[in-house]
């Protein structure tokens, strides 16, 4: 499957690579080496330069200066095509499948050698073979249009496509937060495939904000901070605490938060009452004022749909769903329904609050700027100027702007749809603190997430399965075992 020459164990070597975007220096002289038959874990805060570095490696961005050598040979005119020919594949954070084409047709895009009569069938077989190998029981058909797949299945196709081989060799696969839209089950399948792939001599660069994945699957770990590599050692040399410390997180530890006093439910007024559409019994999701309510279970089991219903109920209550105050939504898929790409950071923050920023009938530019600046400080958005376009920010910082938009608004209820996707651990801890502070001040949160760590911030958790609430866990009952048991529980 892979053609790795034992004589040359070095797959990729980057030397003193820099990349500037206007005044922003995203990479400040990076040296990086990837060995064959190894998994390299790459960690760092949002904006540390990980994604930029991977774009350079994949040939989609040209470095401002520095040297790239593949398989020991220096490349002077590096490009996407060349990277492909030399066996370097990349699964980017932003999914890159064409939504209007089928799974098989998307596979063909990467493999020009599949041609002639019956190419659809052959491309289909190639991708399904790969899916079978990586994600047994995936349930994806080659003829499905990509737009009809859930986000996690698209991610699975994207990953399987990167690992598929025709005539070009396959040496290195870059996985940029591959598990962020997968549930725990499929993430586990992927990581064990990565170990098999590496054992057969391939190489993988694994980027993840879930430190357990990095520590458990990497041979070597590279830590980036502010566009530079600050540590590169054997994985054995790290543990969670040291990784977090090396990344330069403001928090010394990422242990679960000190248990806030377990609230007795029902002492504050009910803010949200919602019942999933396919709920057969009369179970409601209930949120009292000042509570943080978790929505758990595997991804795509009706959590997002319920959040949207709660959001829509703010303009019109229904018999199944009622809310008692304005609702704001923090989207997880920030490209689709989060950011306004043509706008500045400040405009993206204030759009939910324009009515409150008016003086008379007009929006006051002074008050608008003041609100944006206030939230930049409170949530730590890393940008020299809030007038810069939102797309000049890294993914995690864009997400911070979306949090600022919701938390700065008049909404007393905030619903969050897997909001920490692609957010680094330092930012996460800051946002956890912020959310708990806001809840203590009387805001109500509904929080859909697949991460146990995030659920531990919740006062109460509802577990979803096949579009229904199957378990209702108080904070004291929330353990990983409980959660997994409930997630697998099948309703009659």
């Amino acid at each position, binding site marked *: 499957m892979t053609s790795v020459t034992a004589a040359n164990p070095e797959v990729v070597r980057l030397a003193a690579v820099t990349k*500037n975007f*206007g*005044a*922003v*220096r*995203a990479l*400040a002289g990076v040296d990086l080496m990837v060995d064959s038959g190894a998994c390299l874990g790459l960690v760092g805060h949002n*904006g*540390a*330069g990980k994604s930029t570095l991977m774009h350079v490696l994949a040939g989609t961005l040209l470095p401002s200066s520095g040297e790239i050598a593949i398989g020991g040979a220096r490349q002077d005119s590096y490009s996407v095509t060349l990277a492909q020919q030399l066996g370097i594949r990349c699964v980017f954070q932003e999914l890159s499948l064409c939504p209007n084409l089928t799974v098989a047709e998307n596979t063909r895009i990467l493999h020009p050698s599949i041609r002639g009569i019956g190419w659809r069938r052959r491309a289909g077989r190639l991708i399904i073979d790969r899916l079978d190998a990586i994600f047994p029981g995936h349930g994806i058909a080659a003829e499905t249009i990509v737009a009809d797949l859930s986000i996690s299945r698209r991610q699975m196709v994207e990953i399987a496509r990167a690992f598929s081989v025709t005539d070009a060799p396959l040496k290195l696969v870059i996985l940029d937060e591959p598990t962020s839209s997968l549930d725990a089950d499929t993430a586990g399948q992927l990581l064990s495939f990565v170990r098999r792939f590496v054992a057969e001599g391939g190489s993988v660069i694994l980027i993840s904000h879930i430190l357990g994945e990095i520590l458990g699957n990497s041979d070597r770990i590279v830590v980036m901070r*502010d*566009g530079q590599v600050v540590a590169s050692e054997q994985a054995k040399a790290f543990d969670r605490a040291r990784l977090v410390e090396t990344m330069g997180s403001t928090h010394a530890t990422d242990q679960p938060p000190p248990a806030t006093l377990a609230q007795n439910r029902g002492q504050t007024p009910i803010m949200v009452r919602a019942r999933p559409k396919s709920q057969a019994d009369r179970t409601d999701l209930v949120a009292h004022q000042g509570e943080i309510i978790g929505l758990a279970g595997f991804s795509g089991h009706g959590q997002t749909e319920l959040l949207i219903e709660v*959001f829509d109920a*703010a303009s019109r209550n229904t018999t199944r769903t009622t809310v008692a105050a*304005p*609702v*704001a*939504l923090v*989207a997880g898929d920030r490209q*689709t*329904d*989060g*950011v*306004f*790409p*043509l*706008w500045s950071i400040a*405009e993206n923050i204030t*759009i*939910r609050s*324009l*009515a409150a920023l*008016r003086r008379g*009938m*007009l*929006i006051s530019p002074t008050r608008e700027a003041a609100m944006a600046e206030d939230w930049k400080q409170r949530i730590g958005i*890393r*940008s*020299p100027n809030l007038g810069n*376009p939102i797309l000049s920010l890294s993914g995690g910082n864009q997400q911070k702007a979306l949090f600022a*938009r919701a938390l700065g*608004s008049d*909404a007393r209820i905030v619903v969050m749809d897997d909001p920490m996707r692609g957010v680094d651990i330092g930012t996460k801890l800051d946002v956890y603190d912020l959310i708990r502070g806001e809840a203590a001040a009387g805001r109500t949160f509904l929080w859909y997430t697949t991460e146990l760590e995030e659920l531990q911030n919740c006062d109460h958790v509802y577990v979803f399965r096949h579009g229904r609430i199957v378990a209702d866990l108080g904070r004291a009952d929330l353990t990983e075992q409980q959660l997994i048991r409930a997630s697998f529980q099948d309703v009659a």
Partner: protein
Amino acid sequence: MTEEIVPAAPPRHGVLKLFATQIELRMLLLTLAVMLVLAISSPYFRTLNNLLNAMDQSVVVGLVALGQTLVILIGGIDLAVGSLVGVTGIVLGLCFPSLGLYGAVAACLVTGAVAGTISGAITTFGRVAPFVVTLGMMSIGRSLAYVLSGATSISAIPPALGDLSSLTIFGVPLNFTLLIIVYLLAWWFLSRAKGGRTLYAIGSNNAAARVAGLSISIWSVLAYTISGLMAAVSAIFLTSRVLSIDPLAGTGLELDSIAAVVIGGASLFGGRGSIIGTLFGVFIMVFIRNGLNLLGVSPYWQGTAIGSIIIAAVLLERIVSSRARR
């Protein structure tokens, strides 16, 4: 990465930077350049009389282009405006005998607004492409103009309506003054009011606008309502100029208005554009038509000239604004 910012280069040339970032200033410059070229090539162009004439000519297309700008900002397009000028003008002419001057004007405005609202509601709630809906509305409008008028022009217009075009304020025609006032109102609305920001939001990212809690359905329809209303206003000014209305009135205005918006720097994909840019787009088109007439260029060549200007202006805008964003 606050710590890693390379010291930002100070704006090298203050004025140049201003021109690079402000599309309105670039358009002003382009308009002045066009005027300068025409003033040099034709002595008559320089006369006050001709300037007043050009102002007068910019009113009808300018009013239509204002509504068109709002529709294009939300990522739509309104092909019906030209035929709406025709049908609302006929309504105006037919209503004078029974409803009087003010009643007829009101009937004309209501007709335009209702027709626009129908287009907007079908594209927004029926999820039909605006190109298709307004193409249909364009055909319906022109057809109704013929049916209602019996395919003849109406000349029984109260002379009082002519005041709109003949009166002047301190030497400036009243109709042109009103045009500038509505543009200033629209500019104020788009840049500083919540509704204006909502229109930009819809064009920039519809799904995100919904999630941000903006009233996207209402404003998506209102853009077309205003466009229809502006077509009716335009019909009133057109009628006041010649004190007669024809079922063919407004033919081609949909393309002229789209051209003005595009020359003014708006993106047909929505979310990007400026009302002041559109106003300069109108001036550029009017001046060039006017200038070519004065220079004795055959009217058959004017289409080629205007077409080239559209393409050149948009190409220039792309180059300049992509440089500015670097």
